[in-house]
């Protein structure tokens, strides 16, 4: 009698545990049309941004965006265009972080996703590019 009750208890616990484990995801969902669109837009823009990264005109910020850090590295005639590129890129990045959080049904994860990206952009950037260290100063990789 006692053994049966215990067994039943353990079974119930196992079922609850398995249900909980199924909710935890091994991968984040990133295959949505919105995310694919943002990715394509950023990929296309990167051909224009690559030179600006290399010259040090723009750098990767600690909060997962990019910023014009040295306007003098851009010829005056192209400065306005550089500014627009930075603004458009940051708009896409913010949308990307939001869309990933939403695609996984966890809008509250946006900040943590942004923080994860901030680290990975810097980690994967090329030598010579500039990034912001945790205290906010620019560092050349």
């Amino acid at each position, binding site marked *: *009698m*006692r053994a049966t*009750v*215990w067994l*039943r*208890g*353990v079974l*119930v*616990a*196992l079922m*609850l*545990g398995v249900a*909980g*484990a199924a*909710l*935890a*995801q*091994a*991968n*984040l969902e*990133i295959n949505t049309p919105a*995310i694919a669109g943002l*990715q394509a837009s*950023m*990929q296309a823009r*990167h051909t224009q941004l690559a030179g600006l990264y290399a010259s040090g005109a723009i750098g990767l910020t600690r909060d997962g965006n990019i910023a014009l850090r040295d306007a003098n590295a851009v010829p005056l005639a192209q400065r306005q265009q550089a500014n627009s590129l930075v603004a458009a890129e940051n708009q896409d990045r913010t949308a*990307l972080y939001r869309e*990933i959080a939403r695609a996984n049904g966890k809008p509250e*994860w946006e900040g*943590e*996703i942004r923080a*994860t*990206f901030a*680290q*990975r*952009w810097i980690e*994967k950037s090329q030598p010579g590019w500039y990034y912001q260290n945790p205290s906010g100063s620019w560092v050349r990789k």
Partner: protein
Amino acid sequence: MQSLNKGIVMKDRIAGLLAALVCALALGGCVTINIYFPAAAAEKAADKIIDEVWQIKKDADAASGDKPAAAR
């Protein structure tokens, strides 16, 4: 006699329920960390997207496949 038996059965029931509760809480605790924020999965997703956006090629295969052949 019958009421004594009933008392024992009740005790067993409560013990069983308590055991279930303790096990569920213990298992739930392991899972909660994952539900909160899957940092490793987020990193993997970020890497995948960054590789696409920056067109970073996975040249590990090409390098290990080509270099020994070129050296010989």
